């Protein structure tokens, strides 16, 4: 692959006290790539993507995002973060602002975009996640699936180079999972670079360029969805897949 590198992690390690949460992680994300990270709970997958916008600090190794190395003394962390969109498991919308304002806030306050322009962009992305009619409601008035789609629109309004999804459908009712996955699939079709932590294997199979399986802080297996689901090489992967695909 010759495309430009968006995220590069080299020999990344992280500890929580004595607990070794990430062990020697190496991962490269190219522009336009869709990567799905899966693994059992506690395997470090959320921790890893939270390191990519430095919501978490890594202690060893190097993470370079858009050419900027992330470390504890960086002065331009805001610039990096504003180019990396993040969607959380629990949405984390700003409950005291309308849906529209949630989407306008970032561009206005961080990038200094004029209100009228921010508004137009916000409406455009709300249209894209198919909830323009909810623009003037407050987040609590929306269903979980709608809130998560607003959260996606809010991130998109910052025009990020890469989107990180941290278990975006785990807190949703089954019916609402598909509306969020449809939105994400749409994004993938349009060429957005995405790193998704998710257990939605159907989504991984349909959308991912690469599936990464993590266990106990390590990347155990990595491959195209086809290879990953048909011929998992490691026993740990086989057990995981048989558990998750059993039902």
């Amino acid at each position, binding site marked *: 692959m010759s495309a430009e590198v968006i995220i590069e992690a080299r020999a990344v390690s992280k500890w929580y006290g004595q607990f070794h949460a990430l062990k020697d992680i190496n991962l490269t994300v190219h522009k336009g790539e869709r990567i799905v990270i899966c693994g059992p709970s506690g395997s470090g997958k959320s921790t890893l993507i939270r390191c990519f916008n430095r919501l978490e600090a890594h202690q060893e190794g190097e993470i370079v995002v858009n050419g900027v190395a992330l470390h504890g003394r960086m002065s331009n962390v805001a610039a990096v973060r504003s180019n990396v969109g993040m969607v959380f498991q629990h949405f984390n919308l700003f409950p005291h602002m309308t849906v529209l304002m949630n989407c306008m*806030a970032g561009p206005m306050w961080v990038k200094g975009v004029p209100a009228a322009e921010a508004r137009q962009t916000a409406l455009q992305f709300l249209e894209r996640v198919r909830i323009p009619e909810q623009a003037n409601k407050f987040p609590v008035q929306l269903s979980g699936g709608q809130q998560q789609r607003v959260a996606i629109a809010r991130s998109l309004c910052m025009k990020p180079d890469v989107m990180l999804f941290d278990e975006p459908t785990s807190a949703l009712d089954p019916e609402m999972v598909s509306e969020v996955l449809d939105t994400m699939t749409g994004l993938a079709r349009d060429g957005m670079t995405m790193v998704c932590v998710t257990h939605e294997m159907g989504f991984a199979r349909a959308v991912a360029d690469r599936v990464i399986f993590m266990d106990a802080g390590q990347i155990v297996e990595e491959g195209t969805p086809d290879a990953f689901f048909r011929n998992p090489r490691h026993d740990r992967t086989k057990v995981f897949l048989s558990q998750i695909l059993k039902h």
Partner: protein
Amino acid sequence: MLYPDTVEAEVLVHKPWFVATLFGIVLLVFMAFNMSGTGFAELMRPVIGEPSTSGLYGRFAIGFAIAVIFTLNVVLIGFAPLKLQIGIVWLELLLLFIAFFETFHLSLPFIREKLPFLISQGVVTTLYVSAISIVIASVIAVAGAVAKLSNNGFAYAIASFYTSFFRGLPLLMQVYLIYLGLPQLGFVINAVPAGILALSLCYGAYMTEIFRSGIQSIDRGQWEASRSMGFGFALTMRRIILPQALPVIIPPTGNQFISMLKDSSLVSVIGVWELMFLARTLGQKTFQHMEMLISAAMIYWVLSICLELIQSRIERHYARSKVR
């Protein structure tokens, strides 16, 4: 509102056992007090004869009459809709208070004569001293709360020393310390600024804790979402965290404001001509203490009610985003 259950229970004040118990208690209480010297006993004269010689029968009859009136009143109010109930109960309690003050035989002309000065000098001073102190205390509180939550050792140490000291000393002592102590250091300070300083520092310390708990009550996810979009600390605090913390902060802060309004009376000890000071001095010459004290009490109450109303308006404003 408490959580409203969907199953309707019978109104408490219409349950026979409750009415009977209430009746019995009121009867016993008023029998226990000797009411034969009161105006109510005079009204009962046709039934009980000369009140002072009516004995146990008289006491029973008086207690019985009061218990009937009281219980009937409660049962009847029970039929009224909620808003009317609240209104009637407020009115009745107010009437009881007025009846209580009646027994002091206050000189109304004296009050009418002194009231304008009590308001133009006393209330105005009380209001501006408290208003300035409230503003300064709020600023201190935000800074103190941020300092107490920060990782900076100096900031934390200063803030926690400050809250510990000013919450630990009686306000009266702080007023004296600032007014009499600062001149020792070479700062001669007037009574009004000294009072404002003492009130601000004391209430700033309490409000620091209120603000800190309000800020801490906001979910971590709000910080994470803000940070992930590139918001800095000040922006996150001002636009995301504090607006959400306000609904948590406002009720106890309203409490503090009301409390400060009344505690501003403590600065009267250093000779600030505020409401309490005037209430004590105006009545002194003619020994009409009660007139002035009760007038001042009523004025404090009215001012507090105004603050309560303002507080409930603000609370309603911030309840918007919680409406489903």
